[in-house]
C-alpha cells in the first residue's frame, strides 16, 4: 500500500521522466525548453520531499528563472538556423541510445542489489529555520565552507565577464566574413 509521500514521489518521478524524455526528443527547440522547465520543477518537488526547502527555492530561482529563460531567449534568437523539419538527431544516434540504455540498466541493476540503499531517512534534529541558518553560517564560516563559497563566487564573476566578451557584437562586424 502506498503512503501519501510515496504516491507524490512516484507521480513526480513519472512526470519528470516523461518531461525529460520530451526534452531530448522533441523537434521544436521552444517545446524542448518548455519541457525542460517542467523537468526542473519536478526536481524542485524532490528537494521539498527531501526536506531541503531552501534548495527547492534556489532551484526555482536559479534554474527556472535564470537559466531556462536565458535558454528560451537564445532559442528564439537562433531559430532560423535549424528548423523543425531538419533532422534533429545525428547519424550515430543509435549508438548513443545503446550507451544510455546500457548505463541506465547497469546502474539500476547495481542500485537494486546494494543493501545500503534500502535505508530509511533518519529523523531531522533541526527545524527548517535552524537548517537554513546553519547552512548560511557554514557558508561564511572561516573554518568550514568559505573557500568553496568564494571560489563559486569568483567562478560566477569570471563566467559573467567571459560570456559578455564572447558574445560582444562590435568586434565581429569589423572582421572579414569567414569562408565556411
Amino acid at each position: 500500500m502506498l503512503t501519501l509521500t510515496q504516491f507524490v514521489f512516484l507521480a513526480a518521478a513519472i512526470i519528470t521522466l516523461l518531461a525529460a524524455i520530451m526534452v531530448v526528443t522533441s523537434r521544436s527547440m521552444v517545446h524542448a525548453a518548455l519541457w525542460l522547465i517542467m523537468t526542473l520543477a519536478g526536481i524542485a518537488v524532490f528537494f521539498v520531499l527531501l526536506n531541503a526547502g531552501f534548495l527547492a527555492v534556489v532551484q526555482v530561482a536559479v534554474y527556472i528563472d535564470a537559466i531556462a529563460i536565458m535558454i528560451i531567449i537564445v532559442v528564439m534568437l537562433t531559430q532560423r538556423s535549424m528548423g523543425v523539419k531538419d533532422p534533429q538527431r545525428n547519424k550515430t544516434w543509435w549508438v548513443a541510445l545503446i550507451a544510455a540504455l546500457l548505463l541506465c540498466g547497469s546502474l539500476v541493476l547495481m542500485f537494486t542489489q546494494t543493501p545500503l540503499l534500502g535505508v530509511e531517512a533518519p529523523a531531522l534534529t533541526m527545524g527548517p529555520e535552524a537548517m537554513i541558518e546553519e547552512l548560511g553560517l557554514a557558508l561564511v564560516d572561516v573554518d568550514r565552507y568559505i573557500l568553496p563559497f568564494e571560489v563559486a563566487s569568483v567562478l560566477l564573476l569570471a563566467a559573467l565577464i567571459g560570456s559578455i566578451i564572447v558574445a560582444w557584437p562590435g568586434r565581429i562586424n569589423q572582421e572579414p566574413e569567414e569562408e565556411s
Partner: protein
Amino acid sequence: MIPLSWYIIFAAVLFSVGLYGALARRNALAILMAIELMLNAVNLNLVAFWRYLTPNMVSGKVFALVVFAVAASEAAVGLALIISIYRRRHTIAVEEIDMMKW
C-alpha cells in the same frame, strides 16, 4: 516511507536520458539542455545522500549549491558561445561547427 534507492534509481534514469540527449542531438542548444538534465540528476543525488546518510551535516547542501553556481556559469558561457558561433557561421548544428577540426 521512501527508501534511498528510489531517489538514486530515479537520478540514474534521468542522467541516462540526459546522456542520450547530449550524445544524439545535432542542435548545440539541445545538447546544453541535456547537460542541464545531467547536472540536475547529480544534484538530486547529492541532496538525497545528505538527507539519508548525513542529515546533521551541511556538506551535501553546500556541494549542491556549488553545483548550482557551476550550472549557472556553464549555461551563461555556453549560450554566449552559441550566440557568437551563430553570428559568424549562421548555424548551431554541431557537425557544421568544425573550424577546429582537421
